[in-house]
């Protein structure tokens, strides 16, 4: 547990209380949230998000064989490492001028769909819902629990929970029915993943140019039988989530302001279509738009682009509050992209990482995370895009773009329609997700379960396509290639919790520059050189507090819900500092429920 530093003097002594949660660990590193809370007005007045861990992948990737990139970058993350391998394969394919054979592409898509099913389920039901379970709500909002006891579940006929309080009890860690069922489902979905990518979470059968998975009939039927087994759970989960979140809005009027920020969303697209993708940069606009999750950027509810080339060229890595020295005076690696467009010195292709470890100072520099921003050439703004935890941005962009059209998922009329077939106990179900009015905690969490349904439905489509190809006798899964001496590549994918890009420069057959940009730098970035706060900070700052506890027994559950809605992974510790030198140290494991805090 990190020692909590005293922040600068509060502006209004006696009213503003400093509160810090550090670390809120996530698998990729350490995250700390430092806030000032005005208990008189029940509002967060200031928030800083900080990371105390330096990884250095961009430093030690230099000089390595580019073919190793997928295996090394997989180790960035212990829960979505395969997303990195996949993204690296995409980047390397572009660099080597090759494409995966269609069967390999379907296999990767199936593996990634299983990863989304696994990761979203375990995060939502075993981690996010601890903040909404009976044990936690009893501690933080007893009034809400009393109301939940008296509120019937509108969709009880689907999920079987009579009241909202029954749902909350089912979410209790270790004891609750949903908590335990989710653990079983996450095991099945991991088995599905391993059928396609060999090993979870660092794939053993994913390489540039294809996969080493043997496409046998049983590879796909084993996957299909597991997928059909979890469909009941998925259908119940959507109904249950809708009931719980609808109740939350009713029970706590104004809760839509918790974790709310401008609708500034980025999605880099997922699931390549092998009939279109050739991994050539020159055609990236076309094959990007053919992806089964559409890439795009949404500003204030409007889709401003779905062009991956434009998205790529707009990426800027800003400093300002990060422990790094600037690289603007270095020689750029890539001055023009393969289409002849100029590439900015702040683009990942040209970035050089110069770490400068130093003391944390919230007035100056306070985080190891840099500040990725997207340059909006219409306005000249550097937009602090967030991913909405992943699903929110994916569904938002796909719905507005209206480009996805498959038998199980279609995007049209500004909405995404998901059709799940009949499963063991429940009939066929059609779901519809359309962009909500807010980008807030509840809607980020709600989108997660809808994307589980999306991934399950898409997996059915991929299975049908793969099995049709297999029945025709096509079993080719890999492509030969040579590593050029000089080349560049970029890969765009969706890690489970949002945008993921890998940018690679090869010189003398070795990596000269490699920059993976996963979702957490986007979401957890500190204030940039323009003073723009990162999305966590932006979402938490000025949000209202609904917890009924005062400063002495404050759990910060609303702040935690807001931060966790972005899916920053596993929270394991809380270290609170209450102003005027009094330190309340709570060794707190939310997995055990609030009563064990």
């Amino acid at each position, binding site marked *: 547990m990190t020692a909590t530093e005293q922040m600068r003097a509060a502006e209004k002594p006696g009213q503003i209380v400093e509160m810090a949660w550090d670390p809120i660990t996530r698998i990729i590193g350490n995250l700390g949230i430092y806030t000032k809370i005005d208990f008189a007005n029940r509002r967060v007045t200031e928030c800083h998000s900080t990371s105390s861990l330096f990884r*250095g992948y961009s*430093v*030690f990737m*230099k*000089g*390595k*064989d580019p*073919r*190793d990139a997928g295996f090394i970058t997989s180790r960035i993350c212990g829960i979505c490492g395969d997303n990195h391998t996949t993204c690296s394969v995409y980047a390397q394919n572009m660099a080597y001028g090759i494409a995966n*054979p269609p*069967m390999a592409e379907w296999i990767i898509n199936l593996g990634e769909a299983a990863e989304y099913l696994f990761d979203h389920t375990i995060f939502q039901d075993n981690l996010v819902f601890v903040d909404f379970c009976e044990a936690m709500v009893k501690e933080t909002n007893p009034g809400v629990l009393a109301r939940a006891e008296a509120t019937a579940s509108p969709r009880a006929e689907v999920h079987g929970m009579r009241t909202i309080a029954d749902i909350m009890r089912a979410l209790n860690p270790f004891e609750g029915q949903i908590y335990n069922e989710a653990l079983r489902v996450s095991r099945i979905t991991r088995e599905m993943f391993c059928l396609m990518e060999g090993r979870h979470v660092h794939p053993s059968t994913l*390489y*540039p*140019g294809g996969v080493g998975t*043997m*496409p*046998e*009939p*049983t*590879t796909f039927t084993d996957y299909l039988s597991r997928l059909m087994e979890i469909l009941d759970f998925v259908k119940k989960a959507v109904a249950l989530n809708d009931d719980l979140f609808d109740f939350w809005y009713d029970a706590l009027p104004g809760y839509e302001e918790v974790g709310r920020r401008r609708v500034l969303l980025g999605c880099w697209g997922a699931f390549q279509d092998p009939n279109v993708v050739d991994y050539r940069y020159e055609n990236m606009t076309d094959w990007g738009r053919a992806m089964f999750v559409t890439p795009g950027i949404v500003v204030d509810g409007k889709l401003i682009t779905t062009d991956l080339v434009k998205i790529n060229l707009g990426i800027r890595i800003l400093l300002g509050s990060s422990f790094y*020295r600037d690289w603007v005076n270095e020689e750029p690696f890539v001055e023009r992209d393969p289409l002849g467009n100029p590439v900015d010195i702040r683009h990942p292709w040209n970035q050089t*990482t*110069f*770490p*400068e*470890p130093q003391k944390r100072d919230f007035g100056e520099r306070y985080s190891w995370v840099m500040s990725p921003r997207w340059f909006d050439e219409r306005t000249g703004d550097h937009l602090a895009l967030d991913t909405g935890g992943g699903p929110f941005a994916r569904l938002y962009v796909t719905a507005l773009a209206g480009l996805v059209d498959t038998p199980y998922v279609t995007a049209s009329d500004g909405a995404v329609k998901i059709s799940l077939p009949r499963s063991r106990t429940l009939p066929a179900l059609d779901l519809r997700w359309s962009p909500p009015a807010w980008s807030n905690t509840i809607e980020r969490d709600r989108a997660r379960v809808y994307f589980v349904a999306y991934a399950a439905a898409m997996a059915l489509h991929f299975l049908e396509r793969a099995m049709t190809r*297999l*029945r*025709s*006798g*096509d*079993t*080719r899964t*890999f*492509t*030969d*290639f*040579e*590593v050029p001496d000089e080349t560049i590549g970029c890969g765009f994918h969706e890690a489970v919790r949002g945008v993921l890009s890998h940018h690679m420069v090869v010189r003398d057959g*070795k990596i000269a520059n490699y920059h993976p940009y996963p979702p957490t730098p986007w979401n957890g970035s500190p204030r940039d050189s323009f003073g723009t706060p990162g999305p966590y900070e932006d979402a938490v700052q000025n949000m209202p507090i609904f917890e009924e506890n005062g400063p002495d027994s404050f759990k910060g559950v609303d702040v935690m819900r807001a931060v966790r809605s972005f899916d920053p992974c596993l929270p394991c510790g809380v270290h609170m500092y209450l102003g005027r030198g009094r330190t309340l140290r709570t060794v707190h494991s939310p997995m055990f429920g609030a009563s064990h805090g």
Partner: protein
Amino acid sequence: MAPIRVGEPDVRPDATAHVSGVREGNALGSYEMEPGHHIDGTADARRSTGIRPRDRNPISPSMPNLPPG
């Protein structure tokens, strides 16, 4: 490189990658070298076994040659 004091490296950065003289799996022509793999993406029983593979091919040419799993 970053101005951080570090020790002498024990290995070259690309040591994991390739041993000179060993054939690389990704080298051009590797697919054609694999037994039982056809250039059109199909395969025959030789892909799965070296023991009398022709006896294990489908009895009709119109049937797909699927791996045994």
